[in-house]
């Protein structure tokens, strides 16, 4: 399985320290740090990924004109240095990197980064194997002479429709944070491409893009997450179980949802490739938008517990991220935390418990 290495995670976690002319700021499991362009190249040489995404200077907020200039200059310099160290004339033939280098294109207008793009087209052209783009709009103005290179788009499409849009604009490799976000939210994705036959006239109800497994209608539903779905989760488990696991905050819930959602996404992309080959892509995209709802269902529950380095840095006086769960047991939190790490608290009152047959009211 090919491995792609990038200097930072996607979507990135904004961090207060600023990038410098020699490094970018990151949040890691041990706190904020600076990753120098030099260290990143050494990491590429050592880790030997199939594809290395070049280091890029991105701004946390909408950059002003001065910042934009810096972004271009730094990225330009980092790309030149990285290519020199990986594939340059000074590197012995046997030491030249085998990794394919995807050069970043900044999320700016062409005019603002023309010097850099010119170099990509000329001096750097034969050392780069692809382009890494940071906004869908960049797809529109890839220079003619770089059009043959594969394009990896780092974006956050919120729906499969948005993914299709990026593909129509010319993206080849896409990031889909929506997949993980759906799993975390207890959503089992459920869409196929091309979409099933369009709805008959008069019916206006569109198909949902997924189902929220937190909701009460799944408590005793032993059907698979997706009808006829071939994924491991659907072949072995059912909605009632995932529903139970979500409510019990068991991490298996999210693991099984991830398996299902990856399957749905893989099948979706396979469908897209076939459709493009058939030449029916534009038409299939239109049908897809007519058949399916225009947004993912809302999640009605909480996600899995997140760890510090998965969260943005805390500002002062921020509210609790998760509501307290113990209620009446507050006085004993300390004691219980020491005794047991898997305390279950009923989420129903006395009548509910009685109905469950758990115990009876006195």
């Amino acid at each position: 399985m090919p491995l792609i290495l990038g200097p930072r995670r996607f979507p990135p976690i904004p961090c207060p320290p600023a990038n410098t002319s020699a490094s970018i700021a990151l949040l890691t499991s041990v706190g904020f740090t600076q990753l120098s362009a030099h260290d990143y190249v050494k990491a590429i040489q050592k880790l030997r990924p199939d594809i290395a995404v070049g280091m890029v200077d991105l701004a946390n907020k909408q950059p002003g004109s001065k910042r934009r200039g810096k972004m271009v200059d730094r990225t330009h310099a980092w790309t030149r240095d990285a290519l020199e160290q990986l594939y340059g004339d000074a590197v012995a033939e046997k030491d030249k990197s085998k990794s394919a280098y995807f050069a970043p294109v900044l999320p700016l207008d062409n005019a603002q980064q023309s010097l850099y793009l010119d170099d990509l087209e000329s001096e750097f052209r034969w050392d780069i194997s692809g382009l890494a783009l940071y906004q869908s709009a960049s797809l529109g103005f890839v220079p003619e002479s770089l059009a043959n290179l594969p394009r990896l788009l780092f974006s956050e499409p919120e729906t499969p429709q948005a993914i299709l849009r990026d593909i129509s604009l010319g993206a080849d490799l896409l990031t889909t944070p929506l997949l993980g976000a759906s799993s975390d939210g207890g959503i089992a994705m459920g869409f196929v491409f091309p979409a099933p036959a369009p709805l008959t006239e008069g019916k206006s109800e569109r198909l949902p893009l997924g189902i929220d497994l937190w909701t009460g209608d799944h408590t005793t539903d032993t059907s698979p997450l997706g009808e006829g779905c071939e994924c491991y989760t659907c072949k072995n488990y059912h909605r009632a179980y995932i529903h139970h696991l979500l409510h019990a905050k068991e991490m298996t819930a999210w693991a099984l949802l991830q398996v299902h959602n990856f399957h749905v996404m893989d099948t979706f992309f396979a469908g897209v490739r076939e459709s493009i080959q058939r030449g029916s892509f534009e038409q299939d995209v239109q049908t897809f938008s007519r058949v399916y709802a225009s947004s993912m269902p809302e999640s009605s529950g909480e996600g899995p517990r997140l760890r510090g380095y998965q969260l943005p840095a805390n500002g002062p006086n921020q509210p609790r991220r998760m509501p307290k769960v113990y209620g009446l047991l507050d006085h004993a939190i300390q004691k219980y935390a020491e005794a047991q790490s898997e305390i279950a608290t009923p989420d129903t009152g006395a009548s509910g418990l009685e109905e469950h047959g758990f115990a009876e009211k006195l």
Partner: protein
Amino acid sequence: MLCHRLLARPLAKISYSTLFIPIANMSTTTAPTRKPMPSALTFDRHAKCSTTKARASTLHLPHGSVPLPIFMPVATQASLKGLTYDQLRETGCMLCLNNTYHLGLKPGQAVLDAVGGAHKLQGWDRNLLTDSGGFQMVSLLKLATVTEEGVRFLSPHDGSPMLLTPEHSISLQNSIGSDIIMQLDDVIATTSPDHARIKEAMDRSVRWLDRCIEEHKYPERQNLFCIIQGGLDLELRKQCCEEMVARDTPGIAIGGLSGGEAKEEFCKVVHTCTELLPEHKPRYVMGVGYPEDIVVAVALGADMFDCVWPTRTARFGDAIVSSGTLKLSHKSFADDFRPVEEGCTCICCRPTDQGGLGLTRAYMHHITAKETVGAHLLTIHNVHYMLNMMGKIRQAIIDDQYPAFLRKFFSDIYGGDKSKFPEWAVGALWGVGVDLLADS
């Protein structure tokens, strides 16, 4: 073949148990006629250690055969901490635990009935054992008081008074459909100084056992185990054994241990109880434990164990290995490219050319206690380690090499330094004829 070994053995070794059989018989003859207690299991004893009281057997349950002695991983809420049931199956697990208290709260009895029991709910086609929930009731709930009727407690949600009886617990376990169900017992800390209360709890547990037997709807497919109580008082334990053995449940558990009592006391209780328990029934020591506790308790004649420690410690980044535990979050593992345990056949440690993942300590260090996958992988390793250890224990008993196994086991953990062997283990094993300090 194994039978020959048994028959050929001098009878002297089993004199302890024969000694007590008349007492048990006496109590059955004087006892009132009880509801007959069908059994949904068969217990085949293959071998008994010629030195210690260790037994190797096979427990045939409705969802498959379980080699004993066995460690049972704890899937409290119908899930083993991030693992799929195929991953659990691959560790060799034939029997795992669910908890009645937790399943009673979520998803609740109505859902269990509608779905068709806990096996169907979690997609597990092997055996399940459910604890009755008594322990959780008392330890987790505010203002739980135990009365003759049952456990009175305040609903954690709205504070209204409620009552959980032995009948509720059994009815729930009937809905869960577990292969082994536990009686509701009156659980108090073994370390309680109130002797009268300990005796009351023991007597009450016996009375509750009768109510559980009466309530149990499916004895032909679910095996009810009694739970011996009596704190650390060996006389009470003896009385309880006598009473409960007379009720002829398919299996017997020793309860109330692993609550912070001294290990010497723990060993005495297990030793005393196994002396009085019938040879042809499985014996389950609840809530135990660490590898050292298990190997000693096996020598004292126990067959089944459960503990959350191996899976919980995995989530903190600790791997169980033959030399003890490795704290993989320690930075000394950052560039240690050996597998977690050399020669381990779990999917994590097994090399890639043998179909494993071939993961290194360095990789585990990198993800452990950070990514949930780290927890999943170490949970697999730790459960596999425990089950593999039980397999080795069983083979050693069958080969009649258990004392040698014990010496090697402790030597591995303490780096061959006998002065570091825990005194309680040396003492307890001495009591069953093994000199841990002798040269092997």
